[in-house]
């Protein structure tokens, strides 16, 4: 695909002496949200960290707008065009405003311009009243909003989200997913979103990859992978009873009802 913003070809990663990611191709386009879904230990975070240029690759290349990372593009230059939010907020000592402005400060943006850019993002994520609060005093939801603001203020070309809501309680989580969906609709960036929650994937993603044991098993719209899993293993992962090609028997029929529940909750999430 020539209009791909991010193109990874044959990237693989070893962690702790074993292969965590088999050679994998990955594409993301501007304005698109790509979900990475799979069970625990599938290699979702590994794939995200590799794409974000935060893990050494064993093989393969990553290109941003046609420029290959490590050849035409230094890691630092690449990192200054992306942003990442992890499951833990990972804030640094200081106030909320300091944390949100940190990426801009690292890029040499002066104090006044920094605040001019930080303030609207704080408003957008409803944490403007916390600007001068020390991050040690924040609740989990507030801390994750700060982390999200710190990424969004950079106006990145690619936004990497690694289960950003997994550590939050259900109501906070729903509210944040809803707000993030609104932000992603208005800001035209590519988003890579790791989750083990299909409802979140449905609410946010245009396209979804099913990852298991370091291999991408299937790719399609969230509805597609739930409705038409190609193998029994995928059906098991997404909790669906339907397998599109008949060559994959042996799916536990009791899993079927969960898929329905997930699609219900999608509607619920978006209201």
């Amino acid at each position: 695909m020539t209009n791909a913003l991010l193109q990874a070809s044959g990237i693989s990663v070893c962690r702790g002496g074993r292969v965590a990611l088999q050679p994998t191709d990955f594409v993301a386009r501007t304005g698109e949200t790509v979900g990475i879904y799979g069970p625990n230990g599938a290699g979702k975070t590994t794939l995200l960290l590799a794409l974000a240029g935060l893990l050494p690759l064993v093989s393969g290349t990553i290109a941003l707008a046609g420029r290959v990372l490590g050849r035409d593009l230094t890691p630092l230059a690449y990192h200054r065009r992306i942003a990442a939010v992890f499951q833990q907020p990972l804030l640094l000592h200081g106030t909320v405003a300091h944390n949100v402005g940190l990426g801009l400060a690292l890029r040499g943006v002066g104090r006044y311009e920094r605040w001019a850019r930080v303030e609207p993002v704080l408003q957008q994520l409803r944490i403007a009243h916390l600007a001068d609060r020390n991050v040690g005093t924040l609740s989990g939801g507030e801390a994750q909003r700060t982390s999200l603001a710190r990424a969004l203020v950079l106006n990145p070309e690619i936004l990497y989200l690694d289960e950003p809501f997994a550590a939050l309680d259900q109501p906070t989580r729903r509210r944040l997913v809803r707000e993030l969906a609104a932000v992603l609709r208005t800001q035209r960036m590519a988003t890579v979103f790791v989750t083990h929650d299909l409802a979140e994937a449905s609410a946010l993603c245009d396209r979804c990859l099913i990852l298991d044991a370091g291999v991408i098993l299937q790719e399609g719209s969230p509805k597609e992978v739930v409705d038409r899993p190609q193998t029994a293993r995928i059906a098991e992962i997404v909790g669906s009873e339907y397998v599109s090609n008949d060559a994959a028997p042996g799916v536990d029929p009791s899993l079927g009802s969960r898929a329905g529940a997930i699609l219900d909750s999608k509607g619920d999430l978006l209201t």
Partner: protein
Amino acid sequence: MGAGSWDYWAEIGQGFADAVLLLVTGDPETWGIIRQSLSISVSATLVSMVFGVPLGFWIAYSRFPGRGLLLAICNTGFGLPPVVVGLVLSILLLRHGPLGYLNLRFTPYAMVIGQFILSMPIIINLTVVALQQLDPKLRLQIKALGASRWQTVWLLSREIRLPLLVAYMAGFGAVVSEVGASQMLGGNLPGSTRVLTTAIVMETGMGHYDRAMAYGIVLLLLVAIVVGLLTWVQQSGGRR
């Protein structure tokens, strides 16, 4: 002279009173030695920080063959015998030795070098431990924010600033109370390389217990301040 004899205790008491008098009246010799002790040990520990903290980052975050061995050497460094450091450096600094051309033997600089070597392993080690206690993803987050290598080191140093303060004080406490290397490298020359510890040894040998006690009191106070600050930092660090 029985330990219980009146004369003995009277003499010790008099010595203690004289020691306090030397300190409060600002006796130039006493305070000169205190100043020299502080400036040598403070600067030696500062030099150790300048080299030890970046080395700690390097050991904590890079993977290379022999890394475990290097860490082990740093751990052994905690128990590095000061007299051995003094001996090796003295040999190197002998007039016909490899570093003899520097003419540093029996100068405060030789003492700074010795104390630098003694405090360095402590600082490297405490830096590595502090970094290993951070969330490993924090470094990735900082990189993903677009931090250059030195910006990363700076931001992570800010995160471990309390442990780094602890490392500095632990290093300082170790070298300010050390006598073997200081004696061998400095030679206890008045007005130049005479510091609290070497002065205590000398004055005790000469029977000047009042002066020895005055230096002892100051040394104890210094170490008490260091230990007090360490405890305070660790306690308040736990609350943050």
